[in-house]
């Protein structure tokens, strides 16, 4: 009797508490997640998606200096895009970006793979080398560009000195930045120098994840070191290698700092890739419309690469 009364009382006492708890549960499962996410969504929509859409819109206008002052700009349809494709100079920018980008990716992958293979061996000093190799990754792009530009100096640069003292006398006083090809080689070396550590580190982690038995089995079947790499290791790491190639492609297609600091796009725009051309059109020529059109084209190229990237991740997730 007393018990029953107690239970009834407790139930009556509990009801508001339970309702309150239900309210809290609703808040915690439905409202709180979005509340926590809200600031990040504001950043993503306000500082990334809005600007991209706005850039797209600007690319159909003739926005320029006047538009900054008065907001005055006219819709010009696809004229900026037509101008880009009819201008041989700007058309070349795309070819250049692709060639330079892919050359950097090839260099990065080759050096990254070599470094990973080396670090996968057992030898004294391996741990030290593993740390040293990370260094280029940690050097800021602008600082790296500056020190390499000094090393590539025609008169006092250490690279010309080294090359000419091993007998390549053509490099005595060789001006690296007077022509597009040597200039691109110099910039490309800096880009590869900065990006191979990441690739090496990821590949090394991949190597170490391969079960030792598989390699042993291949060895007992008579496969040499190179054959094991070619027919066992690399095929097993194919998804990782693909992802690394795509990430590197994205990085190297939007390179700006190294080119801007080392060549400024010169001589005579001959090392200007899309990102540098975009910046020049927008902020030196103050042609925001044209700059936006170039930016959108770069964006489309990278979006295609990104779609491939996400596909690859999904495949890996499923596979």
């Amino acid at each position: 009797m007393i018990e029953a009364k107690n239970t009834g009382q407790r139930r009556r006492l509990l009801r508001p508490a339970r309702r309150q708890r239900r309210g809290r549960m609703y808040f915690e499962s439905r409202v709180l997640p979005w509340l926590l996410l809200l600031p990040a969504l504001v950043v993503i929509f306000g500082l990334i998606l809005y600007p991209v859409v706005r850039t797209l819109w600007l690319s159909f206008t003739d926005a320029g200096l006047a538009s900054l002052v008065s907001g005055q700009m006219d819709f010009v349809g696809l004229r900026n895009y037509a101008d880009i494709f009819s201008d041989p100079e700007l058309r070349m920018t795309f070819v250049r970006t692709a060639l330079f980008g892919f050359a950097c990716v090839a260099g990065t992958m080759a050096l990254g793979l070599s470094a990973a293979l080396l670090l996968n061996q057992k030898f004294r000093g391996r741990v030290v080398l593993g740390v040293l190799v990370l260094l280029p990754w940690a050097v800021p792009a602008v600082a790296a560009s500056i020190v390499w530009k000094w090393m590539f100096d025609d008169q006092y640069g250490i690279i010309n000195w080294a090359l000419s003292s091993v007998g390549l006398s053509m490099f005595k006083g060789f001006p690296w930045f007077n022509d597009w090809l040597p200039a691109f080689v110099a910039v490309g070396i800096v880009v590869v120098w900065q990006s191979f550590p990441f690739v090496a580190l990821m590949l090394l982690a991949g190597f170490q994840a391969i079960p030792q038995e598989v390699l042993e089995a291949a060895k007992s079947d008579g496969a040499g070191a190179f054959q094991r790499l070619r027919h066992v290791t690399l095929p097993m790491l194919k998804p990782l290698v693909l992802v690394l190639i795509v990430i590197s492609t994205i990085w190297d297609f939007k390179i700006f700092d190294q080119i801007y600091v080392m060549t400024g796009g010169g001589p005579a725009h001959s090392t200007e890739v899309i990102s540098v051309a975009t910046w020049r059109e927008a902020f030196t020529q103050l042609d925001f419309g044209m700059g936006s059109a170039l930016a959108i084209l770069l964006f489309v190229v990278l979006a295609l690469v990104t779609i491939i990237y996400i596909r690859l991740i999904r495949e890996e997730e499923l596979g």
Partner: protein
Amino acid sequence: MRRSFAASLGLYAGAVALGAFSVFPFLWMVITSVKGSQEIFTRTPVFVPHSPTLGRYAQVLGGEFARALLNSVIVATGTTVLGVSVAVLAGYSLARFRLPLRRYLLMLILSTQMFPLVALIIPLFIVMRTLGLLNTYPGLILAYLSFTVPLAAWMMRGFFQSIPPELEDAAMVDGATRMGAFLRVVLPVAGPGVAATSIYAFIVAWNEFLIALTFISDEQMRTLPVALQSFIGRESTDWGAIMAASVIFTLPVIAFFLLVHKRLTRGMAAGALKG
């Protein structure tokens, strides 16, 4: 299995070459910065300075460069505090709740990493100009959130996922609210992850060049990379001073980087490979 002598030789030669290639440019930066002026412009490079001097560091830190250093510290710190706060909350939400559209949100966050900054910078410039935020710290910090928040949120999500949910379940059974459990139980455990993410955010903000170059025209407001870049354009380039400035610019990054690179690469690898 023993390696042949030739194989060992090849291995060590490769190791030495790789090590030298990786380290030499930074070493050369340091060596050049402590040389006397007459040892910098020589046909045959001087590898060991005859009388090393730290004078250039004093010169650089006493001059206009000091201001750039201060600007960089303020902007990078501001970006880190604001960006990581936003990213911690978002990362927790993404790690623990079954949100509708979560897949698409995650994909969106991941793909923003691929966006070229030049595709954002024109409208950002126009907006900042309208708001009068060009040549200001808040202008740069706001713009820097665009590339720090997504990856930082992604990394924090990974760190939170590695913490068992039973931890906050237990705290909530004991009467804590979700937020209370998050702040008092989960966050302290995620401390190392927060530290790694903060260092990541600091480094990318510290290194950023394109936006700073565009938004800052006032010499007093320049950050380090922009100040450095403006030095090499001058008539007679003072390479010794530039190298000293570059060392000051680079050292904190290297120190931070070596501190957290393991956690960082693990976080990024998880982000890159396990969508």
